[in-house]
């Protein structure tokens, strides 16, 4: 498996779709689609995310790797496929902003891991709370770029509690990276430092999701 991980990482970082597809086909010869997502794609995206975290790789590479991985998984497990992960019920949103890149990165990684998740786009506090309630969301992922939006997450967490919901809130984005105490200040349940953190964070929260 390790040689496949390395080959796929190289293909993704070189934005070489053809080679990436060949690696997937090689893996598919002996593995089920969901195992490919979990044992091949996610470890590669985690390595790439770690590379960005350490300053060795660039966001453009993270973005393209996620996009290609998502395309690859969609051929193996089309949206809505019976084997896609439906639990926990997930949704992702950008709060009070039109900077969509962070959300897109996380969305790609989660879809590459076989999750189906709702994408709320750019929403305000009230809309986010009401949609979370209506869709009975268990884990809500919120991406922000600007500090005021990050601070406004507290209105979301407070609003969800007021409605009696026990939705877990995961935050990510620049303000949380530059102030490591901020996620606790806004009463989130967890933060992701990069897009590929999302899988581990959701798995860790899994135990607490009823």
């Amino acid at each position, binding site marked *: 498996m390790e040689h496949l991980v390395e080959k796929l990482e190289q293909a993704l970082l070189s934005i070489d779709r053809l080679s990436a597809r060949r690696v997937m086909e090689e893996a598919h010869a002996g593995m089920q689609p969901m195992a490919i997502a979990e044992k091949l794609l996610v470890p590669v995206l985690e390595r790439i995310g770690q590379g960005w975290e350490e300053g060795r790789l660039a966001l453009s590479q993270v973005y393209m790797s996620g996009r290609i991985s998502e395309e690859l998984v969609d051929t193996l497990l089309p949206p809505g496929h019976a084997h896609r992960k439906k639990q926990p019920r997930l949704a992702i949103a950008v709060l009070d902003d*039109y900077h969509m890149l962070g959300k897109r990165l996380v969305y790609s990684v989660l879809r590459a891991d076989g999750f189906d998740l709702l994408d709320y786009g750019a929403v305000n506090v009230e809309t986010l709370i009401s949609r979370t309630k209506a869709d009975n969301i268990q884990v809500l992922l919120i991406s922000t770029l600007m500090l005021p*939006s990050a601070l406004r997450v507290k209105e979301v967490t407070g609003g969800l509690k007021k409605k009696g919901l026990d939705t877990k809130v995961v935050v990510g984005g620049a303000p949380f990276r*530059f102030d490591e105490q901020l996620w606790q200040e806004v009463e989130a349940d967890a933060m992701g430092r990069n897009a590929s953190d999302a899988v581990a964070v959701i798995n860790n929260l899994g135990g607490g999701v009823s």
Partner: protein
Amino acid sequence: MKGEEMTSLERVLTTLDHREPDRVPLFLPVTMHGAKELGMSIEEYFSKAENVVEGQLRLWKKYQNDCINATFYAPIEVEAWGGEVIFSADGPPNSGRPFIRDPHQIMDLEPPRVKETPCLLKVLKAITLLKERVGDEAPIIGIAVSPFSLPVMQMGFDKYFDLMYDQPSLFQQLMKINENFCVEWANAQLEAGATAIAYFDPVSSSTISSREMYLETGFEIAKRTIARIEGPTATHMASGRCLPILDDIAQTGTAIIGTSVLEDLTHMKTVCKNKLVVLGNLNGIEMRRWTPQQAETKVKEAIEKAGPGGGFILSDNHGEIPFQVPDEVLSAISTAVRRWGRYPIAVN
């Protein structure tokens, strides 16, 4: 001049010459705080050149800043292109839904003419009035978003990456249009009285672009653009990393590099020695909850690392101080730089 009080402009010019002035210069990029000074909303504050002039003059005196920020808000440039700007009560005006919604719009895209665009004329008026009041006492800093970074607001970051990778000819066309606009905008600010232009280029940062990609794109664009800007420039990565490309940045013709808090100032200073002045890198996001004592400690640390030998300007790491940063923290930073930033540096 050593040991004597210099004017802010003298202090900055000596720093740009990679020599030690009387003390480390302080660039506090306070923009929205002017609204607080004048007791008005952020939206009202930025609606008139006269407000920004008055706000900046008050902030200059209050924090004994070594520069005047003629900056209004970053998305004023997309406003000029017909894009939407969203004002908020407690943060910087933000760009709204991108106005390039289909990449093919780029084929017919026309840049705004600077001297016929009301929002840009408002900035030029503010610069002219500031220059009348400040003269040569302190540098007035204008701002231009780089042609390579402007598309994040013009079309959205993900769509821009898609354009770069999937439609290179449309990408090149957009760069050509943006370069002409950036040069016209920067030169208009210099003509109005700005001393230098902050060339904001976060997409070129190593956080966003690999060096290979930068050399093919942001680097060439910066070289061409900066060569046509008729005054000094300071390149700013707006919190992004830049260590892997510092030698390349030095070749673009810029004089100053704004550095991220994610990078070590000692290392930055060593690599930049005699090539680029280091600007940075206090954490503006964390600053919101610093005590005055913590602010002093952070200033001391930065000065100890990057002050000796000159070539260093103390600033934040992003290029704009968040509205939530309290006045007492900004005052503490200002006091600390006066206390610990005097040359020769002796912070212990």
